[in-house]
Structure formats: structure tokens, C-alpha cells
């Protein structure tokens, strides 16, 4: 298969994005060559654990990185170079074309301003609404995001709202100018599970109603499931596997994706069933060795995994994975049985002879 030339151009296209932070201990390579496309009206989920570079990727898109960060690569939004737009200080781009919802609703609202004013301010600034028009619209927006009693809420302060309601306000603010692209950076991490579901459903509904595209950043594959069209799994600043959601969940190739999925507790597991964690810790991002970053934690690891960083296979837009012994293939099976027989992987991780299959 090849990429179809006649397909519409993606709304957002990221190519070979690198982000480095110089620190006293050496440069932190937070993002190492991330590429993806996002089409109009689609949702891309970026999944990874802490330190995998998913949030840094999002912040790069929104030009939120500290000045010390060294960025290279190409970010194109609707044919325009986003980093050039940001550098030029273009008015009415961020917030109108693309915007972002943050993780913690406790700190992402200004504590001394009423929520109505905070929403209205965006409208007045970008769309030139009058104060009263903007406040009315703010009230409507609060209604759209499912806020009970919007008329009363507009004149309340953030500390009078619960976490879930605050996050609704944040979403209303983000939606105010009808952006075409919404980046949601772990939008539900700080709220409890029932509220999580409400908020995710809300985001999904709003995206469909308004034809927005969305990048959903999360550490929870469960959040991505059923809401994302495409999923990119990140590890140590790289995309290690990316595919459409169905393929990724049911026919994954990367052992990390597999391990992530396996670590999610299932409802039909027996009571007091042992969780299946991923052994080890995420790697250091300073001076990473020239090897697969996941190898020390991977039950498939072979000698060649330690010899170099595996490249992402295939073309952008297809099922791509960066693994020399992909799970669910013959090479993977061979690697697994070799490790089982030896009782240890090439990277020194002990492997039990029995245990869950590949």
C-alpha cells in the first residue's frame, strides 16, 4: 500500500519533530523525531507514560515551551508553518484556529476572575464582541458544555466550582472561538472516574458537533479506546507504534503497546488478580544509549535490540511500529521462546518460563 495522492491534505502535519532541553546534567532529548498527520474532523490519541514526550509535543505545537528549548522539525497547520506564525506573533491564530485544554482545572483558571469574564475575554479579544454580548455568549457556552445553572455560574469564581465543573469552564473557554483543532492534554487526569467519562463524552460530542479535530493526550489507553480514530504510542520521546485505533488495540505489533494493554485491569479478571505491570522504569532522556529504549523492560529483547534504535516501519498514515521482534509475528514468537528458554532477555531482564503468552 502507498499513501493515496488524492487524499485531502491533513489539517495538522508534524514531521521529524525534535525537542531538546539543555540542562546542567546534559541535554534532555524530550522528543526525538515525532511525525504524524491529523485530518479534519479526526481524533488522534497520543498515549504514553510520564516522560514519554507527549506533553512536550503538545506544548511545542502550541508554542508553550520555555525559551531554552531547542526545537527542530516541521509543524504545518492547514498549509501554514505554525512555528513561523508563532515566532511572528501572529494575532488571532492560537485560540482561534487551534487551542488547548490543560490537565489541571485547579490551576488553569485565573482564581480572581469570574468564570464568565474569563470566557468572555477570549470572545472580546478575538471576535471583537462587546462586553454584554460576550457575557451572553459565555453563558450559552457554559450551557453547551453541560454546566448546570449557567446563568448563575457566569458570575462565580473558580474556587466555587468543583474540579469537574472547572474543567467544563476550561473547555468552554477553549471552544469560545470555534477552533478547528483542540489539543486536550490529559484533560481528565485530575478529576475522578465518573466525571472523567462525562468530560470525555462531552469532548467527543463537541468534536463531532463542531467538526473539530482533536489531539487527545493521555497515559491511559482506556481513555483512547472508542474515542480516537488513530492512536500513537510514545516511549522515550519517540512514536513506537501508530495505527488506526482498531488495529492498535487488536493487532498491535510493539511489545510496549502490548504491555500497556496488558497492565490495564480487566473487569472479568478474578478477584485479587495480580496486576501485570511493566517491569523497570522509563529510561533517562539524557544521553540515551544507541539502542531500543524499551529493550531493558521488554520480554522480547534480543541482542540486536541493543545494537541500535529501531526505525519506524512503513509510511506515515499506515500501521507503523519500531520493533525488530514485533509481537504477533514469527520473529516475535521466536524471540519470546528463546528468552523463555534462557530465563533472561538479552538486556538482562528475568523472564519466567510460564506466565502470560505473547
Amino acid at each position: 500500500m502507498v499513501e493515496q495522492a488524492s487524499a485531502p491534505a491533513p489539517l495538522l502535519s508534524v514531521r521529524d519533530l525534535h525537542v531538546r532541553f539543555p540542562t546542567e546534567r546534559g541535554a534532555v532529548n524530550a522528543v526525538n523525531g515525532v511525525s504524524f498527520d491529523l485530518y479534519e474532523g479526526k481524533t488522534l490519541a497520543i498515549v504514553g507514560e510520564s516522560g514519554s514526550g507527549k506533553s512536550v509535543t503538545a506544548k511545542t505545537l502550541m508554542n508553550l515551551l520555555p525559551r531554552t528549548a531547542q526545537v527542530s522539525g516541521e509543524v504545518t497547520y492547514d498549509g501554514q508553518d505554525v512555528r513561523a506564525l508563532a515566532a511572528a506573533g501572529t494575532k488571532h491564530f492560537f485560540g482561534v484556529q487551534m487551542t488547548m485544554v490543560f490537565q489541571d482545572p485547579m490551576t488553569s483558571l485565573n482564581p480572581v476572575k469570574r468564570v464568565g469574564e474569563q470566557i468572555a475575554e477570549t470572545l472580546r479579544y478575538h471576535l471583537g464582541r462587546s462586553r454584554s454580548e460576550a457575557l451572553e455568549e459565555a453563558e450559552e457556552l457554559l450551557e453547551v458544555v453541560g454546566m448546570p445553572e449557567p446563568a448563575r455560574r457566569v458570575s462565580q469564581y473558580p474556587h466555587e466550582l468543583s474540579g469537574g465543573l472547572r474543567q467544563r469552564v476550561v473547555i468552554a473557554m477553549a471552544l469560545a472561538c470555534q477552533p478547528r483543532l483542540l489539543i486536550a492534554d490529559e484533560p481528565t487526569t485530575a478529576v475522578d472516574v465518573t466525571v472523567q467519562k462525562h468530560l470525555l463524552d462531552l469532548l467527543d460530542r463537541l468534536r463531532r458537533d463542531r467538526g473539530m479535530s482533536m489531539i487527545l493526550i493521555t497515559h491511559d489507553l482506556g481513555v483512547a479506546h472508542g474515542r480516537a480514530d488513530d492512536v500513537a504510542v510514545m516511549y522515550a520521546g519517540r512514536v513506537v507504534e501508530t495505527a488506526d485505533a482498531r488495529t492498535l488495540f487488536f493487532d498491535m505489533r510493539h511489545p510496549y503497546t502490548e504491555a500497556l494493554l496488558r497492565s490495564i485491569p480487566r473487569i472479568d479478571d478474578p478477584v485479587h488478580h495480580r496486576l501485570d505491570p511493566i517491569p523497570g522504569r522509563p529510561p533517562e532522556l539524557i544521553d540515551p544509549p544507541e539502542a531500543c529504549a524499551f529493550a531493558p523492560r521488554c520480554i522480547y529483547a534480543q541482542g540486536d535490540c541493543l545494537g541500535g534504535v529501531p526505525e519506524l516501519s512503513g509510511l506515515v498514515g499506515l500501521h507503523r511500529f519500531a520493533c525488530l521482534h514485533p509481537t504477533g509475528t514469527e520473529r516475535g514468537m521466536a524471540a519470546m521462546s528463546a528468552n523463555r528458554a534462557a530465563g533472561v532477555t538479552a538486556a538482562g531482564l528475568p523472564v519466567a518460563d510460564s506466565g502470560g503468552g505473547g
Partner: protein
Amino acid sequence: MNAEDRVTGKPKASRDPRASRQRLLWRFRILRLVRPSRVSDDSPAGDDSAVRRRLGFSFWLAVVWLLIMAFVAVCAPLLPMADPTKVAFSGPREPPSLDAWFGTDALGRDVFSRTMYGARISLAVGGFAIVFGMVVGGSLGIVAGYFRGRLDQAVGFVFFVLLSFPALVLAILITATFERSMLVVSLTIGILAVAPVGLLSRASTLVFAEREFVAAARVLGARNGRIIVRELLPNVVIPMGALTLLGMAVAVVAEGSLAFLGLSVAGEDAISWGKMIVDGAGLRDLQNATHVTMFPVAVMFVTVLSLNFAGDRIREYFDVKELAF
């Protein structure tokens, strides 16, 4: 029942009288004098089970005193009082009487009316000085704290120079060099206030600039100027404002100290508490006509005490508030 699920019947409440009363309350809440009684999320309006924090009776007593002094200072010429500058050779150093409530001083001038007039310069100098310190120090601090880097270093250097220069020497230097108008005296004290206020605003800017709402404003398209004015300033003003009264108390005392050195506002017409105290500070007066100094001292004392007291209560009030976020 989950709060998120509850959607009340009326989507748009009409503007009922209670809503307007609420709105009035919000106005006060901007001043942060009335603390919100409802802190929880969706409890329908009205249940006041949440603890309401109060500033207390003595706070309001202090405020009333300060308001009286402010009223007297503004309206002194309109009030039925003796001319504070009129010299009466007939009765110097008269003790308090019904005619002259606080007695008369060495030149036979009415101490009561002089004390009332004295509030004008003392409060004006104190107020202007602290406002100057807030505006200049506050904005320097915010800008330095927001942009960091070289600008921060430069501003920090200026602050530390100001702080390490002996305050009194600086004050004497300025007031001795320039004509001692009210503006110069106020500015002198104001300049001394710049560094402490600036360091405070810089410190709180550093804290708030890290909060996500600044990043949120940026992703919504706001740029530096807008972020400073619309996002940071309303937050930084609160801890600064809480210190206004305390700062003013210091400034009033500072004016008194300058007056004692003969360096307060020049001229016979310019009456300040400090100058009155100096007038009556001769040994003979202190022994025989204590009222000449005691009344301005008492009024100044109560005023500074009120400023400190009210200021301290406000500061306490907001400190707790900050933690509550």
C-alpha cells in the same frame, strides 16, 4: 447523586431580585471584604453551612477611625474650627478648655484645629508615598518576575541598591537637596517603599506565572502585555493591596521622623503631626504644657495603630485565602 449529572430545570434564570443582591455581593467580593459563604460546587444557593470568615469588630473600629481621619483631612477647611495658623498672643500654652479642646501651643495657636489640619499632610504624604511605591515597585516587580532573565537581574540590582542604602541618609540627602514641597517629601518616602514592594510583587509574580492559567491564556491567543495586565496583575495586586495599610503606617511614621529632623514639608502653613510634636518638644513645654505634644502624638499613635491593626487583619485574611486555593 453525581453533581455533574444534575441539570436544573431552568436553563436561563431570569434576573430576579435575589440575583441583583448576589451581584452586589460579588462587587464586594472583588474587594475581598466579604468572603464567599458558599465554597462548594453545586449546592443550591442559600445553605450557609460553610464557615464564614470575619474580619472582626476591632477591625471595623480601626476602619471607622481611619475613615474619620480621612474625612477630617479632606474637609478640614470646611469644618467649624479655629484657624490653625492664627497666632494669639493672649493665650499661649493654655490647657484644654471648652474653647480650645486640645489647648493652645507656644504661639497660642489652637492645638485641636492644628491636629485636624495635620492629618492632611500626614495622611497625604503617607498615602501618596505608598501609592508611588506600589505603582513603581509593583510594576517593576511584575515585569521582572514575568520576563526573568537580564531584565530581572537589572531590576533586582536596583532593588538591592535601594535596600542597602541607609534609608534615613537617602531621605536626608533628597530633602536637603530639593525644595521641601509635599511632593518631594512624599516621593522621598515613596522611593524608599519601591524596593520592598517590588520584591514582594516580583515574588508573587514568579509564583503565579507558573500557574497553568497563564499558559491557558497563551493558548487562547493572549500575548505578553495582555497576560501581565489581565492575568497576573489581578492576582499580584491582592497580596500587595493587603500590605498597603501596613506600608502607609510606616510612611506616616517616616514623615514624623523627617519632621523631627526638620526635614518635612516646609512652610508655616504646612502643618503635620510630626512638625507639631517638634514644636512642643522643648523641655519647658514638655514639663509645663504637655498637651501641646501629647495630643498630636496621641492622634498619630491611634492612627498608626489603626493602620497597623487593619492592615494586619487584612494580611492575615488573605494569607489564609491564598492557602485555600
